[in-house]
């Protein structure tokens, strides 16, 4: 199939609690479907290569880099983007610790932390490091993010 192929296929999924049925090209990337078709621009493009984590969303509760997923792959699945989180403990901890500067990587970090909290609510320091090293923040020193994460996981600072 050439990437010029403009044939569209129906895809049905749930994002932030809302059912969506849309038609997409086979080559459409999930990040851009969320941003361009559904207006969910909170997920950011930082590399389109799975290197930076700015596009992280939850698919079935698990953090996924949406730049590495085709939209047709999420047929029948349930997703949460940053727009689906309101007053979550992770967001509150990021606010309290001002764990961001420019804010561009922040949705990805928050969603990744949220996924970690869902899957491993008692994660230790090393597990947290392994999960969070998949995201890049260029502005902060990570110290602020570490403090926020420690609040969420009730670790000692």
């Amino acid at each position, binding site marked *: 199939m050439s*990437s*010029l192929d403009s044939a569209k296929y129906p895809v049905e999924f749930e994002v932030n609690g809302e059912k969506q049925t849309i038609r997409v090209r086979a*080559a459409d990337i999930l990040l*851009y479907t969320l*941003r*361009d078709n559904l207006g*969910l*621009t*909170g*997920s*950011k*493009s*930082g*590399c*389109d*290569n799975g*290197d*930076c984590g*700015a596009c992280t969303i939850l698919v079935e509760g698990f953090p996924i880099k949406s730049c590495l997923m085709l939209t047709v792959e999420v047929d029948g699945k349930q997703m949460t*983007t*940053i*727009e689906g*989180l*309101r007053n979550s403990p992770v*967001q509150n901890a*990021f*606010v309290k610790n*001002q764990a*961001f*500067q*420019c*804010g*561009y*990587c*922040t*949705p990805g970090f*928050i969603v990744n932390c949220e996924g970690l909290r869902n899957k491993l609510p008692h994660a230790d320091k090393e597990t947290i*490091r392994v999960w*969070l*090293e998949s*995201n*890049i*923040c*260029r*502005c*902060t*020193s*990570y*110290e*602020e*993010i*570490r403090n926020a994460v420690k609040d969420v996981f009730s670790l000692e600072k």
Partner: protein
Amino acid sequence: MLGYDEKGGVKISSSLGKSIPRKETWEKVTGITRYVNDISTPGLFHVKIAISPHAHAKIITIDSSEAMKIPGVKEVITGRDFPILTGSPLADRPPIAIDKVRYYGEPVALVVADQDYIAEMAANRIKVVYELLPAVLSPREALQKNAPLVHERLAEYKQHEEVYPEPGTNVANRTKIRKGNMEEGWRKSHHTVEVEVTLPQSDHAAMEMRCCTAEIMPDGKVIFHSASQSPFVIRRAISQSFHIPIHKVIVHTPLVGGSFGGKSAIQMEFLAYMASRAVGGRAVKLVNSREVDMISSPVHIGLDATVKLGCTREGKLMATEILHLYDGGAYSDRGAVMSRSGAIDCTGPYRIDNVHCDSLCMYTNHPYSTSYRGFGHPELTFAMERAVDLLANLVNMDPLEFRFNNAIGPGDTTPTQTLLDRSNLGDLPMCIAKLKSLIDWDDLPHRKIDGHLIKARGVCCFWKTSDTPTDAGAGAVIVFNPDGSINLLCGAVEIGQGTRTALTQLLAEKLRMDDQMIHISTGVNTETDPQHWKTVASRSTFLVGNAILNAADDAIVQLKSIAAIVMQCLPTDLDVGAGKVFFKDRPAKGISIDKIANGYKFPNGNTIGGQVIGRGSYAMRNLTSLDPETGKGNPGPEWTVGAQAVEVELNTKEYTYKIVKAATVIDAGKVINPEFARSQVTGGMSMGLSLASREAFLFNDQGAIINPQFRTYKLIRYGEQPQYFVDFVETPHLEAPYGLRGIGEHGLIGMPAALANSLTLAAGVELNHLPLTPEMIWRTIHDSV
């Protein structure tokens, strides 16, 4: 809030020194922030850049017929369609290459299409025939007499600011510092050292890629949305390049996703404008992919430097001779100015009476460079501080004591012969003293061996002035709302540093009111906001801050004159604070600002005054251009100083190392928001440690960059951060709001030097070449045996 103490005086809480959160906090944690690429309009066309695969080559033909055949492609634009030269201070750069390409990644064509992926595909189908030219791949190579010329017509380029290109060579700019008497300086030097250092080019790597939209309206107005640090310079550059009246160029800059200097250059805007014009003025969007952002848009400058430094038997610095060869890349852009900055502060914050420095911005066939956090200073500091450490070692002195003894102070002069005083120079000895206690310098060993692990600590000092145009300035307008709150209008861009929030704190302090009553938009709009030169050089709180204080004074006069009529007194009887205008001697008696903010209406309907609107502006004072032969002049309003340290643990089996601790003490003049200040400093330190430990563009022998993505161009990640220590000294700069000094860039400046000094001590070999990867350490050790 306003209260009254026992004696009936006014008690008002201060906004200074308070860590209030960013105004846009909740937008940023909920994903509703709109950066430029989050804005879309129906029918928007997409633009993609076709780039050069060669570092230096003649363009023979460009064939876009295959690209034009793809359905959805609207237009292909080449350099010949807009044969103009752009760039400041030296107009040496066609926005799209015309006769030849000068770097790998240079734009050779633009494609406009109705879909982003169509434009991308078409860009790949543009066929360009090149004839390869010999490439210049380092600044030292560029200086050779027989080096190929990157620019053959250097003499013909228009100059917008002072810059001294040398036609017939690859020198884009040369700054000379000639101070004192070199012969005498060397005669009095019992010890001398000479070091050669190199820092390769690297990337700003802001998380948000550069992005710009453009639309040309039927009446000729051009509207941009751009992720930029320089919305007002975009207006001027587009106006000059395309002969459009400046008032017809309107730039919107929303929140910016990081920039670090990289978004101060004007590049995308030229391309977006051309693209829009080619399709009849339709709205177009140009967004860089990460790869294009890294190699096609401007990068962080490189440096090859030689420093010769001498001191007396007692360790007093006497003379220095410095050669800076900045790797400016294919076009000079702000690299030409950065090389000047590298000369202005070439000695570091030390008293040296005899100085000879040539600082050159070299053309090479590398990507072109622009401002990067620290503006030439991380580079010059790395060179000088390696020499200082060597010399301290040679005279067998503690490296911090050596620096303390030679610290520059009031009464001394800079390399540009500017006389320093307690206001225009921070207190370096105090910073060094505080650093010592912060890291227990005197009590813990500087080097400690534990089996194959060696812990070592290295230090450095830095200084920086801003080197702006001598007329850089800013304006501010404060508009009172009917509820007594204020809208603050100004042109400082929020790039993550927290400036717009900190500016509301300055205004709150001046008007002695609650900072929650001061509102500020997130974005900048050149049509409605007063001009601000650029959000660069750690100068926004200084320039815009002073404009705001002047605007507040203007508003206070208006408030008092309305209140004086209502309260039947003289304006001079009154004072303003906590949302009220009140009698100086009877603070309990006053009128609330919301009653007079839109004029005061008497019971009979008569009204006096109207909406209270304060206006203020400020421009740099007493700055001068530098003498081209000696460098004499006054480049900046003040010098921020600081001292830094890094502790590493080197594994001598693997040559890997951990950065254990990093510390900075900086003279901030006055800390406005402690949390922002710490975060700016540690953020800068993190960027500096990442830069020094791993960041570099890797070129093949043809000049192509082989690591243009984050998988191969590594950045520091979560978990690698050391323990950070930060402290402040507060020596006021009398010209600045509440005495503040610039601190946005400075955490970065000394990190490469301090890391190299610590690793040199740990490894026992001189480490003078960045980045300090395990491979670099291993090679240096093995080459030395």
